[in-house]
């Protein structure tokens, strides 16, 4: 949990730094690009969760046969 909050803090600080003192380009003028970024992040995190699950299953398989 501690690690997770640290990561969240890191990402949010990067985002804040990025947002400071820059004019709004057409790319993000509507603010909707953040929705796309959020969806990309969700898809990636789910793929990662699946990889962790696979990893866990393979570890169990290895331990069973020992």
């Amino acid at each position, binding site marked *: 949990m501690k*690690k997770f909050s640290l990561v969240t803090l890191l990402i949010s600080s*990067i985002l804040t730094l990025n947002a400071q003192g820059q004019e709004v380009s057409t790319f993000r003028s509507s603010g909707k690009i953040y929705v796309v970024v959020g969806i990309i992040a969700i898809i*990636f995190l789910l793929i990662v969760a699946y990889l962790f699950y696979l*990893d866990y299953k393979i570890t169990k398989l290895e331990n069973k046969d020992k």
Partner: protein
Amino acid sequence: MKRIPNLWYKLTAVIIVMYALVYGMLKELPNNVGVLDETIRNLFYHVPMWFGMIIILLAAWINSIMYLSKPSIKRDVYATELTNVGLLMGFCGLFTGMFWATFTWGTPWTRDPKLMGVAAGMSIYMGYWLMSKSISDNEKRARLCAAFNVFIFPLFIALILIMPKIANFSIHPGSGESVNFKTYNKENNLQFVFYPAVIGWTLLFVWIAELRSRLSINKIRKENEEVFTGNITYK
């Protein structure tokens, strides 16, 4: 945590790729990118696939050399699986590149030296893949594949990096006389997203290769029914 081995690099990979995905989309861009416009962001997604593939295939090549100098199941499995995952990464790069080219060059495929080199190189690696699937004798397959891999990696590098570099004309960035990475580098530091993206994606695909290797080694161990150390040779 004992449940998941080598957790540190997996978490590192996830964090770095997450950073590259999110920050790559939100980063302010240089103004002088011309026809590329916002698609210069593909530098953070398309190019790391190729860089990562080269790193992973290099690792496979080293494992093949290690197999030839001291044969062991572990080295053979690592080389095979790393090559498979490298090829997967290459296809990610190929299809993203074709998609990008459709909107930048107006066509998904041109007779560009870089693209032709990649087509030839990927064909060679698909031949490697086919060979690794089609020989039933494990030891023979392992030795043939290792020897083949030792030769094809330098050839692959020559085809995708050196040949486009010495070609007279290429529209693909980073080859011949065309624009390269440094052209856009001056005011907006694209490399602060690009290099982490390369490292992150490479680690992520290494993770997949590790999963496949462990499954494969587990299977071989089961088949052989003997004390398995990871360093024995095929029976």
